[in-house]
Structure formats: structure tokens, C-alpha cells
């Protein structure tokens, strides 16, 4: 059960705009194993959503363009596939949950029909069977009165219920990879707890791997097995969840962890990361975190650090501080 299901190698997704080229995802590599929950965390504009769109083949072209790299899904490069081949995989083997449960559903179509539509594309089931399967999925994601709910429309449901419907849609074909892009950001905490609980339960039950994209480190801490931290389009640190939270190495990760208030520890002095994320259009040649880093050295300004492997368990960091100790 430890096969790599998705491997991203040196992915470069750029956007060519009038003002210049935005390197939204710049030389990012990571992999997801079968049945694992990989957390992808970073602030807005760090490239986490563009990474997920690149996997799904949904980057708007133009202005976007995948300039290099590979996205290997079960060994096959998704970037080399035709649109037709991709469509077979999308919605079947790789599915996605979006951030906005309000806009991701079709307002004029019944919930049951929208879920069953997936089966129309990917299976030979007849209409009655498809409907039955849709009702079954609605029940599985914990919505009461599934038969009745299947006949209702999105506006008749709350945000939490709609997100459940989208999850039902994403899981109906039992995908090997589920991409959840900020699945709970638009929801209240009590509903967030319900949805994350559901994703974890289904991850256990179906062994679908999950790419969990969020800005919320607490959500990552409680749900992910491994974590990738991105900053300004680049991977800055990656490790298993316990290592990352117990022993963070990159000054950005360290700063972030020290800057969030923790329930039950109101007297914790919050660390302030000064400044803001640099403009991605004219990124300085050095480390993108240079202008905000408390441990910046002279070479950080002009020289982009390499990714350094800190141990044999895949703890990676992109920072000059660790260059002397380890090299790859």
C-alpha cells in the first residue's frame, strides 16, 4: 500500500501577463502515496491552487502555460495526454473539491441528477441505477433523508450540506486521488469539523489519497500525514506532519508556526513576520523569503538556495542555513 500514486517533478506553471511573467509554480516537486493525506500549505498567492489546477489540467491557457516538468499519475505523464484521455481520468480517478460550495453546483439541476451525471460519463449504468447510486452516495456523506434530498435543488441546502454533496460527487467513482482545495475555508468551525471528519472517514474507507490544500496550519496538523509548505511559488519545506510541527527548519515555517494563536495558550507571545509576500512578477534572484527573514545572510539576497535533504525520511528544506550540514 505504499505505492506512489502521483509524482510531480519540477513543475513550472507560469502566467504570461502584460506586466510580465508570473512564476506561480516554480520548480515544485513532491509525491503522494496511495491512501495518504498530503497537506499543501501556504498563504494566498503562494501557488498552491495553481498546483492543483495543473494536476487537473485546468490551468487557463492563455495566459497560463505549463513551461516544464512532469505530473506522473500512476506512472503516466498527465501533461502529455490528450484532452480526451485526461477527461477519462478526471472525475473518475482524480477528482476535486473546490473552495466555494455556493458556486460549484448547478443551481437549476436537481442534486441527484448532478451526482448521477458523473456516472453518465464514466460508466454504462442505466438511468435508474445511476439515480440509486447517487442516493446511496448522499446517504454515505451523512445527509438525512437522501431520497428526498436527491430531488432538491442546491439553493435549498446550507453551505455545509452543499460541500457534502460535492464530496459525494467527487467520491462516487472511488477515485485514487482526491484534491481538496480549501474545502472548509468558507464554512463555520462546527461545520468544518464535520466535513474534515467526513473526508478522513472516507479516506480510511476508500483508501483514496487526498491532496489537502489549505492556508490553515491547524487543519493540516490534525488531518495530514505529510506536509509541503509553499512560498511565492516555491517549495520551501516538506516533511511528515510530526517532524514539520515539532522540528521545523525553514525560517518561514518556523515563523508561521510561532505566529498563530493556539487555543488554550492565550499568553503565548505571537511572533510577527514583518513585511509582505514579494510581487511575483519581478521576484528578486535570491531566496523569495529574504526580505522578511530574521535569519537572512548575505548570500540569501542573490542566490536562490537549493533544496536540501535533511534526513532519510524526506525532510526537505530550501534554505542556505542548512547548506554546510547536508548537500544533495
Amino acid at each position, binding site marked *: 500500500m505504499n505505492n506512489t500514486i502521483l509524482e510531480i517533478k519540477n513543475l513550472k506553471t507560469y502566467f504570461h501577463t502584460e506586466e510580465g511573467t508570473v512564476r506561480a509554480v516554480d520548480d515544485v516537486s513532491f509525491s503522494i502515496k496511495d491512501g495518504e493525506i498530503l497537506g499543501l500549505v501556504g498563504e494566498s498567492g503562494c501557488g498552491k491552487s495553481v498546483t492543483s489546477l495543473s494536476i487537473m489540467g485546468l490551468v487557463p491557457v492563455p495566459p497560463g502555460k505549463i513551461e516544464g516538468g512532469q505530473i506522473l499519475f500512476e506512472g503516466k505523464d498527465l501533461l502529455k495526454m490528450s484532452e480526451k484521455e485526461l477527461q477519462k481520468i478526471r472525475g473518475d480517478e482524480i477528482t476535486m473539491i473546490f473552495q466555494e460550495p455556493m458556486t460549484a453546483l448547478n443551481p437549476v439541476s436537481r442534486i441527484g441528477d448532478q451526482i448521477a451525471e458523473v456516472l453518465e460519463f464514466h460508466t454504462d449504468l442505466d438511468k435508474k441505477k445511476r439515480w440509486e447510486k447517487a442516493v446511496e452516495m448522499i446517504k454515505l456523506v451523512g445527509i438525512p433523508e437522501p431520497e428526498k434530498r436527491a430531488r432538491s435543488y442546491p439553493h435549498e441546502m446550507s453551505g455545509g450540506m452543499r460541500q457534502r454533496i460535492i464530496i459525494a460527487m467527487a467520491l462516487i467513482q472511488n477515485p485514487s486521488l482526491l484534491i481538496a482545495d480549501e474545502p472548509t475555508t468558507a464554512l463555520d*468551525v*462546527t461545520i468544518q*469539523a464535520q466535513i474534515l*471528519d467526513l473526508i478522513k472517514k472516507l479516506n480510511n474507507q476508500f483508501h483514496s489519497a487526498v491532496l489537502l490544500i489549505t492556508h490553515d496550519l*491547524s487543519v493540516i496538523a490534525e488531518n495530514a500525514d505529510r506536509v509541503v509548505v509553499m512560498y511565492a511559488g516555491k517549495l520551501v519545506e516538506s516533511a511528515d506532519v510530526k517532524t514539520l510541527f515539532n522540528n521545523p527548519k525553514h525560517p518561514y515555517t518556523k515563523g508561521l508556526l510561532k505566529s498563530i*494563536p*493556539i*487555543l488554550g495558550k492565550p499568553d503565548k507571545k505571537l511572533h*510577527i513576520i514583518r513585511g509582505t509576500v514579494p510581487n511575483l512578477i519581478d521576484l528578486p534572484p535570491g531566496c523569495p523569503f529574504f526580505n522578511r527573514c530574521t535569519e537572512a545572510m548575505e548570500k540569501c539576497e542573490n542566490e536562490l538556495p537549493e533544496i536540501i535533504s535533511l534526513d532519510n525520511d524526506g525532510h526537505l528544506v530550501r534554505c542556505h542555513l542548512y547548506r554546510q550540514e547536508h548537500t544533495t
Partner: protein
Amino acid sequence: MSNLVEIYNLKKYFPIKAGILRKTVGYIKAVDDISLKISKGKTVGLVGESGCGKTTAGRTITALYKPTGGEMFFDTSPEDIEHVLNLKKEIETLSGAEQSEKRRELHTLRKRMDMYSLPKKELNKRRKEFQMVFQDPYGSLNPRIPVGDIIGEGLDIHHLYKTKKERKEIIQDLMAKTGIDPSYINRYSHEFSGGQRQRIGIARALSLNPKLLVLDEPVSALDVSIQVQILDLLEKLQSDFDLTYLFIAHDLSVVEYFCQDVAVMYLGKIVEKAPRDKLYKDKLHPYTQALISAVPIPDPNTKRQRIILEGDVPSPVSPPKGCYFHPRCNQCMDICKVEEPPVFEPKEGHSVQCWLYKGSKIVG
């Protein structure tokens, strides 16, 4: 310590209109009978899920909405407040001519002290004492005028400067104090990032030298690293300008970090209210217990027992009978389904609206 704000039985109902004649067919009770005190120089947190009425409460407290009922005393002496409240109680026991005479007396008193009964002109003059910082740093700034004018609009309205030069000085001083480069005075809001825009919103609110700032989710639209910068700024401004804050938020860890007193709202009502340490330590209301247990913690080493609430927040148009929380409550009893609980005070300074504490002192 005296209170800057005392609110009694505040109600804000929005009519639901239907049909060609736009007849009122019902009410959304967005804020339904809440009472709250805010001590001078303190920060009170108002927390709850979306739709619980916390923003409406904030807007009514800053008199942006006219309330359906209730009183607000702003910077009024405790003796005066007591006088009004006693008079109100007295009226209920009286009848006839005596009652109407007392009523008139109450009316004149309220016109002088209760912010919601002040004549309009008077109220507008006093508005500068309480200002609001809005939730959405993108939607709350006019994109067509330079930030200098956005910050200076209040100064213009209240005529707080003599010369153009003085106006510019005040604005640039505010910008410097809130961490915006004063040389950006002629730039437009789209040229700023989310965090900087929130600073502009804060500068605008500060321009009138208010005593109370109502902060409506001031950091929830911002990135983690920017959130701390804004919280830090707010802390600094509070001590520099002797400000009192009402901090409206849904993030319970931020509220715990930032506030001294906390009130929890559910469907238009304050269900629990206490100083921060008491509230987070002894969560009395089952809703507060569930809400706090649902907050994720950024530490993979701790596993917590989580209370997963069933279902969603009911619609405030047709709230359930009895206690509004009973359909989702894991400790629901028979009485909860039929009768709304009064506000109990099981411990000094810690009040809760829940039947579990029947037998404790009733305070409301």
C-alpha cells in the same frame, strides 16, 4: 472600573416582506434581546457562527442600524444608568396618572442619555465617539477616491480641521500611526494589499478620535502572517489611544488571544458570557463546549475529544421552539423543547442561557 458601553435588551428585527403590497409577513430576529457591558479600555469578544447576528449587533451598537428595541448608554455615569433602569422597573408597578407622569420623566431622561433615543442631530454629533472597522478590506473602501480622502472623510463631515494643510497633516499622521507610508496619500485603494487596506480602514475609524472601536472580523480575510501584524497594531493603538474594543470574530483562538471578556452568540442571543479565562476553562453552555472543541489545534501530537454537532444552524426566520439550540444539543432535556431558558448566573460574572443550570441565580 466603569463601563464605557452598557446595552440593555437590544433587539434588531428585519421585516420580511412579501406579495405585491410588500406586506410584512414575519421578522428575522437578527439580534434578539441581548445585554452587554464593555469596560473602559478592555476588549470584549463577540463570537458565533455565520448568521448568528454578531455583525448586526456590531452595526446596531455603532448606531448604523436603528434598533427595534433596547437602550444603549455610552460613557454615562453608573448612577444615571441605575436611575433610568429603576424608573423603568417602577413604571411597571404603577398605573394611571402616576404611571404616565413617570413615563414622561423616563422619556426625557432617555432622550438625554440613551443613544437610541437621542435626537438625530445629537446622535450624529456623538457618532465620532464610536467607530467601526469593517470585515471586508476589499469592499469597504471606495475605489474611486484616494486613500487620503477615504481616511479624511470623517474629518470633513465633523469639521475637525481649519486649513487644508492641517487636514493633510492629520491624515498623514494617522497613516504613519497605522503603518502606511504617508507618501501614499494620493494612491487608490486597489494599489494596496489586503493587510494595508485593513490598516486604511483602521486609520479611517481612528480619524475621529473615537472611544470605542467595533472591529468586525478585522483579520479573518487576511493571511496568517498578516493577521498577526494587524492584531499587533490594534494592541498598540489600544494602549496609545486608550481605546475600548468590541471584537467580533468567529475564530475562537484569536478571540482567546485578543479579548479579556467573551460573549458567545447563537441565533440572535447571547448564550454565554464571562471573562475570557472563565469561559475557556469552564465552558458552561453545550454550544460553547461544542464550538471550542471544534477548533483545530496546530499540534499533531495532541488528539482531542471532539464534539461533532449534528446539523446546521436553524433559520432565524422560524427558530425552533424552546431553547434555540435544542435540536443540535447533546444534553437536551424535555424542558428545552418547550420553554426558552432564562439567563442563569451559576458563578459570579459568568452567565449562561441554559436549563442545565436551573436553580442558579436568574439574572435576565
